[in-house]
């Protein structure tokens, strides 16, 4: 794949990829062999931030490392670099039990022009991946090739969204690890603990991880 290396101060490079799939592939390739002096590797929608301790890992050396990893990664994003490191990408999917009873479930299905049951079925059938974490500690942005829908955010964000709420925005699924304000459309909830500051890692969903949803409990007021 071709990447652009954008300046980000004396201790970081912002690497721009062509797509979310390329970000996932590049992040995987980089995470597989972290050099000494690497401080942060932060994937996002189109970029990976590589931040270093330049006294240990000069920025030029980090840039060559990134270019080599990008050259090895095909442009379509599918990649399997050999590595002894156990990456979340290779691990079995994290399965989250979900009750599809979110406040916005029926409205969201209507907005997409499909039935509630179809929305739930498509959501359950899709295999998801954590593209990146943003917005709040442990708040995972999940993407899926099996998910064709783009959902607009609420016009007015809620001041309080309960922890465990499963929600949609743009092409993403997200789950609120803790209670917070939020503008995503709520489709369900999970009892899973998504954030525990005493756990290692504290986030249940980490970048690159595969995720499946499993229905638990019945929906209330669904129009199917």
């Amino acid at each position: 794949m071709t990447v652009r290396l954008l300046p980000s101060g004396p201790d970081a490079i912002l690497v721009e990829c062509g797509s979310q799939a390329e970000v996932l592939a590049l992040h995987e390739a980089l995470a597989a062999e972290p050099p000494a002096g690497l401080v942060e590797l932060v994937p996002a929608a189109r970029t990976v931030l590589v931040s270093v301790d330049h006294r240990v890992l000069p920025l030029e050396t980090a840039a060559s490392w990134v270019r080599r990893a990008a050259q090895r990664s095909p442009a379509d994003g599918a990649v399997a670099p050999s590595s002894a490191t156990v990456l979340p990408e290779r691990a079995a999917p994290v399965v989250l039990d979900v009750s599809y009873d979110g406040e916005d479930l029926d409205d969201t299905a209507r907005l997409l022009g499909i039935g509630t049951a179809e929305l739930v079925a498509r959501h359950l059938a899709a295999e998801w991946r954590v593209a990146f974490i943003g917005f709040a500690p442990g708040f995972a942005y999940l993407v899926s090739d099996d998910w064709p829908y783009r959902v607009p955010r609420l016009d007015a964000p809620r001041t309080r969204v309960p922890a465990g709420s499963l929600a949609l925005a743009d092409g993403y699924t997200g789950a609120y690890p803790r209670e917070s304000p939020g503008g995503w459309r709520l489709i369900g909830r999970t009892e899973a603990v998504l954030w525990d500051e005493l756990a290692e890692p504290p986030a249940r969903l980490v970048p690159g991880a595969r995720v499946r949803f499993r229905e638990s409990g019945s929906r209330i007021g669904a129009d199917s």
Partner: protein
Amino acid sequence: MTALRIVAPGASCLVEDLGRPGLARLGVGRSGAADRGALALANRLVGNAEGAAGLEVLLGGFRAVAEADAWIAVTGARGPILVDGVEAPPAVAVRVPAGAELELRPAEHGLRYLVGVRGGIAAPEVLGSRSRDTLAGLGPVPVAAGDRLPIGPEPEAPVALLDREAAFAPVDGPVVLELVPGPRADWFTDAARALLFDAEWRTSAAADRVGTRLEGPALDRLVAGELASEATVPGSMQVSTSGQPTILGPDRPVTGGYPVIAIVAPASLDRVAQLRPGQPVRFRHAR
């Protein structure tokens, strides 16, 4: 374990160390003292490791009683420091006898006092740090009146008589900050990029640990549309849709959706923490 008993926290009093780097991929920012150099200095003065936890006191109005004899050092903002009503000097180790009250009056220069305490503030660590991240709600809760803040064990190093670096009071007039190019500088017109360095900016009252907004001319974009959220580094200057720049602080969100035109050079970053509302700011290219 001995402790500091808080009588009044002032406008805001937070426990801060040098933060928790390396967790941005999980949505956790580095956080840590806004004026990192001031915390490191205060710690060196009382014989602590530079990253020991201290107190970051916004503007002053802080009062605390030492339960046992303690050594403290106050750096960062400058204003009257009193120990049982007697004025004490800034940026040196000061003995606070058991039962005596330390008071920080409203700052006259700069905005944030950093208080180093020999032994460090021994609040529980969260994810490897004792820093309060105000946006993420991680780390020790903001210090309140009546709190008893435990002080850690005596470090081996002695209290320092002099530090290797001279400590200067924060500047009152126009502050000059150095910038390096940001990742999205090419999203702005040439005129906007020139204006950033030519204009005089004013520190907005909208300034906290998340970001410091600057008032001035609008910085026009060349590229319209939305930027997909991306990770930022400390000191990133993002520009809102209306063209106003904000310098992102220690508790910024891990990713942001506004283009970053420039980044405050590390050597200038601590000075942002001491900007007072209304204070003029100018930028120059980092050498």
